[in-house]
């Protein structure tokens, strides 16, 4: 910050630690921001599209992540620059809201910043640029609305949903089995969706992974998988038509919460106490038996005495099941969580067609499958894969696909992918620009150019000639007045995204454009950075 001097030429301090603070203002500040934002976008640019590359990220404690999900990459990069952090948050909020398109939104913001830089160099006031962008973003959002199509689907006809999810998955490492994965994701979402309220609670979909096997072994289970096994090795490994008691109380003599002490002053009393304890165990097991339970799932543990007793009475049991899983089991099996043995009744038992313990390959690890549940409002996606990184990446990809399916249930409009929507918007914005007087016109045109950068990056990543391809597609769109044409990333031989079945959700696309514009506006609006100089 500038120093002030008094009458005697002494500098005086206005702000604490003035010397240690740096201040960047005016056009320099904006330039610095723009280059930071662009740098982030450049990193993600190569990850865009079906032929996009993955990034390997190593965390400080040595964990390696390989992904091409924009939000994950940025999250793990641990950026320090404030503007770069804004870009990270941009991608994160796209992730929160839509779950997909996290790379695209950053690339878009980067392109907008790049275009803004040029305008700033020509002396356009940054706020005018921001306003122009805002107008343009409205134009494109409206245009998207126009070119969007309604997808008709219901619980039985899920094909359109699958197609859209496939588009999302095609850019991921798992694209070799995108069809089965897309089907799994859609079925899972449809199973838990409340179609009337158009609400999907993704918490009800459990995504579980286990190293081993191959990606093709990934399956959707109409029920729950728990990473637990029977409490006693001799208990049966498979139970048909199981009636499940879901307990949150331990198989132990109950303890009052109030401090207590039992005075034992004679042998008889000690005997009674022991007997009573035994009776407790006995009663507990008996109660479970009485209501007809054939399997006990318990949130807490039980000691060997209880375990033995359960084994003895032929009542299989699982212990130490976490609260979330317990809840999912309760939802899936239609049972109720029972906090006390006294409350146990036959109605509160959950029902599952098949409960089995399954071991994997040569390892000793086993998992408990609870399948064929009465009510399939909670489902599990069980992912198999060659290594941990693969599983993690598959989980993220599945998450994206789940989000896409959810968005479609919320709003069933789609636009065509492969950059076709961006190209169509670019054309519309370009055309609209001429109607605006004033400096904003330039900013609107710049916005159109920025929109082009997405198909451009797609083409680049697919090994095509970016400029040639883009101009060809663009002219085709205008000539045939058809917004289906996009970049043929997979070299199928047609540019018609409708035929290629490449779809994206309308809200996802709109969100991308709005969010990118919003963040760029915020960045452009800053003309002063005051920071401690070690930043």
């Amino acid at each position, binding site marked *: 910050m500038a120093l002030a001097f*008094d*009458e*005697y030429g002494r500098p*005086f*301090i206005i702000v*604490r630690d003035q010397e240690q603070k740096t201040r960047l203002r005016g056009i320099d500040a904006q330039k610095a921001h723009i280059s930071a934002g662009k740098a982030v976008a450049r990193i993600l640019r190569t990850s865009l599209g079906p032929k996009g590359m993955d990034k390997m990220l190593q965390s400080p404690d040595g964990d390696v992540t390989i992904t091409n999900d924009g939000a994950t990459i940025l999250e793990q990069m641990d950026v320090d620059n404030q503007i770069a952090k804004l870009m990270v948050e941009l991608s994160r909020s796209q992730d929160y809201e839509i779950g997909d398109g996290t790379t695209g939104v950053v690339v878009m913001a980067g392109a907008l910043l790049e275009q803004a830089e040029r305008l700033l160099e020509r002396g356009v006031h940054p706020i005018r640029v921001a306003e122009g962008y805002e107008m343009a973003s409205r134009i494109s959002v409206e245009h998207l609305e126009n070119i969007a199509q309604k997808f008709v689907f219901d619980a039985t006809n899920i094909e359109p949903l699958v197609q859209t999810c496939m588009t999302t998955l095609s850019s991921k490492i798992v694209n070799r089995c995108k069809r089965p994965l897309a089907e799994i994701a859609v079925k899972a979402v449809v199973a838990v969706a409340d179609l009337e309220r158009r609400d999907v609670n993704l918490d009800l979909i459990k995504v579980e992974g286990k190293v081993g096997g191959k990606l093709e072994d990934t399956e959707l289970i109409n029920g729950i998988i728990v990473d637990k096994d029977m409490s006693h090795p001799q208990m049966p490994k498979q139970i048909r038509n199981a009636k499940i008691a879901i307990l949150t109380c331990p198989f132990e003599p109950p303890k*009052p919460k109030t401090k207590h002490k039992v005075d034992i002053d004679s042998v008889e009393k000690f005997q009674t106490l022991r007997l009573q304890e035994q009776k407790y165990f006995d009663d507990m097991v008996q109660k479970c038996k009485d209501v007809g339970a054939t399997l006990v799932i318990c949130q807490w543990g039980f000691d060997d005495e209880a375990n033995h007793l359960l084994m003895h009475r032929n009542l299989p049991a699982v212990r130490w099941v976490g609260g979330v899983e317990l809840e999912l089991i309760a939802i899936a099996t239609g049972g109720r*969580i029972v906090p006390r043995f006294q409350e146990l009744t036959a109605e509160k038992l959950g029902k599952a067609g098949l409960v089995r313990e399954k071991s994997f390959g040569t390892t000793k690890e086993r998992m408990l499958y609870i399948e064929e549940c009465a009510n399939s409002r909670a489902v599990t996606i069980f992912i198999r894969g060659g290594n941990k990184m693969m599983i993690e990446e598959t989980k993220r990809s599945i998450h994206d696909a789940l989000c896409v399916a959810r968005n479609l249930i919320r709003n069933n409009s789609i636009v065509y992918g492969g950059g076709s929507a961006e190209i169509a918007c670019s054309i519309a914005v370009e055309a609209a620009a001429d109607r605006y007087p004033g400096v904003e016109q330039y900013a609107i045109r710049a916005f159109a150019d920025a929109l082009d950068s997405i198909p451009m990056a797609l083409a680049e990543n697919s090994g095509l000639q970016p400029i040639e391809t883009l101009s060809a597609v663009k002219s085709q769109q205008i000539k045939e007045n058809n917004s289906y044409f996009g970049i043929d990333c997979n070299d199928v031989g047609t540019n018609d995204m409708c035929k290629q079945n490449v779809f994206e959700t309308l809200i996802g696309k709109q969100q991308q454009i709005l969010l990118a514009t919003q963040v760029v506006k915020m960045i452009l609006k*800053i003309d002063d950075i005051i920071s401690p100089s070690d930043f």
Partner: protein
Amino acid sequence: MANMMQPQIILLKEGTDTSQGKPQIISNINACTGIADVVRTTLGPRGMDKLIHDEKGNATISNDGATIMKLLDVVHPAAKILVDIAKSQDSEVGDGTTTVVLFAGEFLKEAKPFIEDGVHSQSLIRSFRAASNLAISKIKELAVSIEGKSMEEKKSLLAKCAATTLSSKLIGGEKEFFASMVVDSVISIGNDDRLNMIGIKKVPGGTMRDSFLVDGVAFKKTFSYAGFEQQPKKFLNPKMLLLNIELELKSEKENAEIRLSDPLQYQSIVDAEWNIIYDKLDKCVQSGAKIVLSRLAIGDLATQYFADRDVFCAGRVTEEDLQRVAAASGGTVQTSVNNVIDEVLGTCEVFEERQVGNERFNIFSGCPSGRTATIVLRGGADQFIEEAERSLHDAIMIVRRALKNSTVVAGGGAIDMAISRYLWEHARKIAGKAQLFINFIILKGIRGMWPARSSPFRQSPGSNSQPKLVCTPRAFLVLPYLIVQPKCEEGHLMVIPRQLCDNAGFDATDVLNKLRQKHALPSGEGARYGVDINTGGIIDTFANFVWEPAVVKINAINAATEAACLILSVDETVKNPKSESAQGDAAAGAMGRGRGGAGFRGRGRGMRRR
């Protein structure tokens, strides 16, 4: 202290910094103008934002004067006064924090030449006070009351005020959207002062447009235990029980101890404890409530119990949210479940758990008493939402102010120009000394009008040459008054329109001249003309609904005058040395004077200005 021969009398502890006299006033003024310069560019619809890091690495992006001032961490004693007035404006009116700092900075800047020329600062102070009184009376005269209009009309008028405030903020692009949201929420809480009845919830993700207003309460899903998902998530016209007790299995008395001599009684103790909690739960259900909310924990047992009986529950609801639910639903928060009668149960039209961004939200809407509102803000980044919240806070304050004190004035610098002209005219009518005062104000006005200094986004090179032309009249005016009294506050007031133009990227000189011409029309019809931010021309801002509540301007002028007078009246600072020389160069040089310059440009004399 030039005479080194005489033994020095040491009065104060070594290292104490004393400065006094005229130079002290000047240096205080310099410090204040330095601070004012920081916020200068944030004014107006095209104002810029500041990004400020603190030591911990948190960054704030803001356009709000008070926030910026607070974060600047000002240590200079005189400059701190400006921070204080920004804060007081914030707490008093809630908006116009940048304006007040700019006013004060400009008043001081105009006073500086006079001080340098030897005018006594008390004279300046007196004229400042006089001018500010005149200005305020003029505002009151020009203000238009919106009292007595129908509710509908009032609503749209209030929305105009809110929109004017919001237009300078990051969310300016959606100002109509937010303005109506703000007005609705303020109107719904009615006339009482409980501002905390408007809840603002921030959810990252989505765009600004996804923000929404709930005519009731909304809060994030609280921590829940197993069994929660089995509860119903939607009710129509449910009854709500609001509690402030724990529904958990726990020891009833902290330091009680039970001694059993007969092991057979063991079970009875266990049962007794369970019965207590079951009894409580049973009473909750018996009351007929379908929704149970508690400020304290609702344990897993209770969660499952309620799930079994199709009751929704949420524990650990924050105090504020619970109060809002109580106010909205007409219920009362109970500290016991005994004797729950129908009157204490609240209700609402629709309760629903809904997905908002990545979170699940409990939303109670259509509440009968309707005395609360919740704004759920969405935005692409945390900083963005933070800033949006600050902006909405400003707008809410403005609307509340306008509701209570229903007079508005034209914004966009129009009112400032009008005052400027008024003061100018007034000055000429006063005989003698007083005229000098007012002229002082005029002078300030003139100087303030020329943007050559300190306009970071000056667009036309032409504006550079203009001030020279103006120098002559200014000099004319100044000379006679130099002897006597202060300059003009008027000039100060012109700082607002000028800054508006500068920030918008227009040629301030050109626009100001047009404005002056309009305002100088004898008919007075031009009094509502201000800067048109969209085209770079001038416009009747009143007719175009750029409105500000009069109280904002009045308070700003008052506070700024106070601050300026305060700073002008200080002629000596005694600063005790910091215990651990917090200021890098605090070590006083010889005799507490003449230190410093070494690291910079030598200890040059004559570097009076920055």
